[in-house]
């Protein structure tokens, strides 16, 4: 239990909770509320050998793969959907063998987390039998149900070493408020040994109470206020998905590992020792203000994606 009154720290300190070789669960999903500033800091600190678990991800996992920090992936999806297509760095890392592929599926992951949350050794599921996930995951066992006689799959408890989340609001005590789809963040927070979070804004507890606590403070180890901390993914209501920046990311990633390092990571990660410098590198206030225009109405919102 994390009961300190004040969980605030700076971004550098926050990422020291992640250690080489950790099993890491990244919050958010696809182009929504990825803890990108925290992951950029992770890359700057060069914390590697990470074993990733998760449901549906994109640029977050792809960027860590491009930085060479990932040892294995048990994600159930990593890609840029129909928007840009397959994840270039993730593909290269998997195909060259630097990342071991242990793909999983969403409900399997959910049940594994639930087992960890409840302190049980496993949870049963009826699905997965008959698919190639069984030989890929020899740790999944089968049993005949003593009540019904049907064959079930037992998936072992999964306790990530650390969950890295990005939320809109928190208080200093570590209560988090997530507005919009929480994806698997709540499960990750309940199941993981350590939970670190970046938030758009830290507010007094009374204010947080009014909008509601999504994740109680005692799960949360440490947190940092990082406005635009999910950029270029979205963190509504503050900002929409930065499709332009993602297109630039994708172009660099598509041209190969070296180009990605030299053109993207150097420009936006290694070359920006702080988050403030990152925000300058992406163009300062102008693009950020543009991403807030979604609130002006449907036409403005649509124009962001045209």
């Amino acid at each position, binding site marked *: 239990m994390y009961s300190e009154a004040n969980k605030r720290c700076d971004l550098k300190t926050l990422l020291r909770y992640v250690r080489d070789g950790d099993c890491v669960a990244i919050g958010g999903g*696809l182009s929504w509320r990825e803890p990108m500033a925290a992951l950029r800091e992770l890359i700057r600190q060069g914390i590697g050998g990470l074993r990733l678990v998760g449901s549906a991800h994109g640029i977050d996992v792809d960027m860590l793969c491009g930085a060479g920090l990932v040892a294995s992936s048990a994600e159930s*999806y990593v890609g840029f959907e129909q928007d840009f297509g397959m994840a270039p760095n993730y593909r290269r890392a998997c195909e060259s063998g630097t990342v071991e*592929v242990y793909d999983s599926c969403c409900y399997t992951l959910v049940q594994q987390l639930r087992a960890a949350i409840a302190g049980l050794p496993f949870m049963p599921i*009826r*699905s997965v039998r008959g698919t190639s996930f069984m030989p890929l995951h020899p740790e999944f066992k089968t049993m005949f149900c003593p009540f019904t006689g049907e064959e079930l799959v037992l998936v072992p408890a999964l306790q990530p070493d650390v969950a890295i989340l990005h939320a809109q609001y928190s208080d200093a005590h570590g209560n988090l408020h997530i507005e919009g789809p929480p*994806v698997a963040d709540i499960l990750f927070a309940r199941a993981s040994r350590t939970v670190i979070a970046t938030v758009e804004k830290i507010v007094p507890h009374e204010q947080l109470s009014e909008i509601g606590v999504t994740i109680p403070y005692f799960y949360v180890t440490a947190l940092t206020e990082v406005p635009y901390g999910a950029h270029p993914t*979205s963190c509504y209501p503050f900002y929409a998905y930065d499709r332009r920046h993602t297109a630039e990311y994708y172009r660099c990633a598509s041209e190969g590992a070296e180009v990605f390092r030299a053109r993207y990571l150097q420009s936006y990660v290694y070359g920006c020792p702080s988050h403030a410098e990152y925000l300058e590198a992406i163009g300062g206030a102008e693009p950020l203000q543009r991403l807030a225009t979604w609130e002006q109405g449907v036409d403005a*919102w649509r124009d962001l994606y045209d």
Partner: protein
Amino acid sequence: MIDRSTPSSCSLGEVMIYQIARTIEDGIVAFHGFGSPLVQLALHLAKRTHAPRLVLVAGATYGVNPTPPFLAPTTNDWVMDRGAECHLDIEELFDLAASGRVGRMFLSGLQIDRWGNMNVTRLGQERLKLKLPGGGGGCNLSCDAQHVTIWTAAHRAPPDPNGRRRFRLVEGCDFVTSVGHRTTDGKTRSDMRYRGHGPDWLVTELGIFDFDEAGHARLAAVYPDVEVAEVRKNTGFEFPMREDLSSVVLPTPEMVALIRALDPLRVHERELRPEERARRFPVT
């Protein structure tokens, strides 16, 4: 600019959206995944036409009955969640499926075999040749959802310079991400005691298949500009045909106008190859 005039023709994407919509029953819980704009639009079309009581659960946001003002280029965007009546948790949706309460799911694959087994995980059996994005919750839902509509907009497998075709509809999958009617060791769904009944439709840009008693894909309809021989040439396995093989039913002008209003950015066309985007069909 959004064209508000009454359409006299429609595109392949619009016909495919309608074909997928036709597989959706009224009053059920149906869920779409991510990266699948054709399916997202099919659900919204169905809800606004023949299936008003549909419980539409949006993939990624898990919003129920949203009314997105336009289709966003990615699935987990607040655009796609606008107007949602309520929300599910990730675990709630999958629990509903596991307990037999999700009526229909939509799945696709880079490899699809005659039984409806699919692969979106990897190409290459011994050695990994191509890492695909992965199946999300498709593995679980292929077992648990009551019914599955399979779709692909890349059935056509043009020969390479050496005359070889890389089929989408294949003899066998390199990896079984989601299950159809027969496992690789020959077991049926009832042998496996899966919760759901498996795929009952396969919608492609060349034709529509149902699945026969044995669970084998069977050609049921072809598009007006496609010959059966062309479907055979582009399919990696032999398949039976329905005796009443028909021509694909085209959407009405009102449906086409509705699809255009739902997707002004034409996001769904990214699922189609450029040459397929040019296909046109009359609507009356």
